[in-house]
């Protein structure tokens, strides 16, 4: 379905159920140059287990038109506008990578609107290498290679896929390749530039979960451990997966989110 957010239609996958704002809501936010479908193996479950699910396509991503936000702060504004458009006073936020930063920004700026916060494949700060930024700025295929290969556990193609019959690297690269020119660069630039003071993290009172991949090459395990240590009461779960944990370990991610969101 579509909501009108900051003047433009915003596509949201609702997990195969009609959206009901009366139910407890979960907002899923994807990472750089991806779309809602990265949550395919988690979002549908919650929609069929008593939650209102909004797995968004961020502006200029997937089925959402508009222009890309070039700062995480702007994404934080947009997510609150999304809640308003959906008629939701508050929701749990689940974000991956850049989406985790957007979710965290929302919780920092609008804590009353966020019931729970799940950060997957997250690092704060989230520095992006110069070579990656430059390749993305030039819309080079090398940027897609970096996003795909570093975005999964090393040699993931040589393992049985978390999603039977799917080649995770190729599937991820194809999804990134669908992004409009400039989108990856805008997203990576936003991740690279965002800063938050540890003191701000220390004031965060929203129940938080950090899910870190033991084989994450993009936001390494240590970054996830560090982030969890800086958020009061945050729960840390480590999984045998790389950065693309929602497809590398889909059932473990689902079980982790289920335990956290149901508590």
């Amino acid at each position, binding site marked *: 379905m579509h909501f009108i957010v900051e003047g433009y239609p915003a596509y949201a*996958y609702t997990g*195969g159920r009609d959206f009901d704002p009366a139910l407890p809501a979960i907002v899923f936010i994807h990472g750089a140059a991806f*779309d809602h*479908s990265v949550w*395919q*193996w988690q979002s*549908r*479950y919650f929609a*069929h287990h008593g939650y209102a699910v909004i797995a968004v396509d961020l502006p200029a991503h*997937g089925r959402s038109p508009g222009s890309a936000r070039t700062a995480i702060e702007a994404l934080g504004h947009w997510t609150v506008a999304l809640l308003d458009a959906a008629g939701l006073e508050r929701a749990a936020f689940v974000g991956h990578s850049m989406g985790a930063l957007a979710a965290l920004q929302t919780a920092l700026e609008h804590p009353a609107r966020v019931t729970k916060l799940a950060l997957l494949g997250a690092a704060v700060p989230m520095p992006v290498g110069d*070579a990656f930024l*430059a*390749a993305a700025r*030039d819309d*080079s*295929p*090398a*940027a*897609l*290679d*970096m996003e*795909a*290969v*570093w975005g999964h556990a090393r*040699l993931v*193609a*040589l*393992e*049985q*896929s*978390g*999603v*039977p*019959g*799917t*080649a995770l*690297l*190729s*599937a991820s690269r*194809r*999804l990134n*390749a*669908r992004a409009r020119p400039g989108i990856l660069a805008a997203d990576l630039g936003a991740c690279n530039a965002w800063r938050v003071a540890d003191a701000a993290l220390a004031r965060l009172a929203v129940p938080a979960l950090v899910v870190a991949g033991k084989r994450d090459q993009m936001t390494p395990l240590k970054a996830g451990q560090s982030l969890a240590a800086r958020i009061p009461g945050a729960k840390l779960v480590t999984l045998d997966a790389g950065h693309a944990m929602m497809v590398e370990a*889909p*059932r473990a991610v*689902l079980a982790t989110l289920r335990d956290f969101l149901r508590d």
Partner: protein
Amino acid sequence: MAHSGPKPPHPDTLAVHAGQGPDPATGARAVPIYQTASFVFPDADTAAALFNMETPGHVYSRLSNPTVSVFEERMAALEDGVGAIATASGQAALHLAIATLVGQGGHVVASASLYGGSHNLLSYTLPRFGIGTTFVPAADPDAWARAITPATRLLFGESVGNPSVDVLDIPALGALAEQRHIPLLVDATVTTPALGRPFEQGAHLVMHSATKFLSGHGVVIGGVLVDGGRFDWAADDRYPTLSQPYAGFHGMVFAEESSTSAFLLRARREGLRDFGACMAPMTAFQVLQGLETLPLRMARHIENTAKVVRFLAGHAAVARVHHPELEDHPGHALARRLYPRGASAILAFELAGGREAGRKFIEALGLFSHLANIGDAKSLVIHPATTTHFRMDDAALAAAGITPGTVRLSIGLEHPDDLLEDLARALRAAQK
């Protein structure tokens, strides 16, 4: 500026390893054969979630099986596709592709030079279900463009035609497919990913008969359908099976469920579920055994074929040899461009003396096996007009590049000198 990114493993490595680490349950290094119809659910909630596609996993081996998945993932990796579905045969893969995309009143534009079984399906069987096909010359992209109607939902050809050995201009047809927004399905059985990758050339879907070079030893019947993940099924209303709610699965809109794998979701959740032409785990194991040596074998197939082509082309008893290796073959330049390592271990030739000479030739061969197959480790021979393509009339035969005297060879892995000696003996016998 030039950028350089990390790359996935090379095809030779993927052929040996893709989709399979040591078995998590036992540590088995070889692919275990999960010879089971069903898989136990850990709890009722997971059972319901698996049935409703809320979580991935195996339920019933008609839909998916761990051994079969290894083959699917290995093929998807080798083709650089987003995923694959293994099928009971190559024919089942073709049927699955068409049935997923085309319905009553739909139309296919296909190459005229197809494997006889594919021609049967398109020409005789699918019209009974309201799906028509226009056959066009494989090497004439303008003819393909002219044959497209408002009802056309699929373009289909063989990377290298069997047995005519003509070369499909995948880049030109891929561009046409993009322009008209109709997916291009390529049967890459003859070339395999070891010689060329159709997605890189412009195809949207790829299918193989795994019976042939992929397994490589003539011991199994199997097929596979791979999705390149590039086609936007929701861009217009021509692919409602993917862009509209499906009553057969709780109103699921496959193109919303997955932006890149919608085709495979529907093909598995409808096509495998309802038509049931799945691959057996034992078959997948046997195909995987062959697939591990695919790059090595294809190199030897091609090397042997080049020697046979040169020998036949210079032989007085041979009227004409059809193979892209030869400069007078219409697909010679295209084959050099698309398949620099070689295009085909299949070749066809015309014997001076026509049908009767062909009969004598085939019966005089000792090392070549006279049978209906290609892509075996053993060298094979057949007379298409009386066997694989016998249902086609003379006009259709001619369009497929077959005459009454055409002989098809599939060159195996024997020592080339032994193959040439056998051919020389049989050619002498054919002239008597």
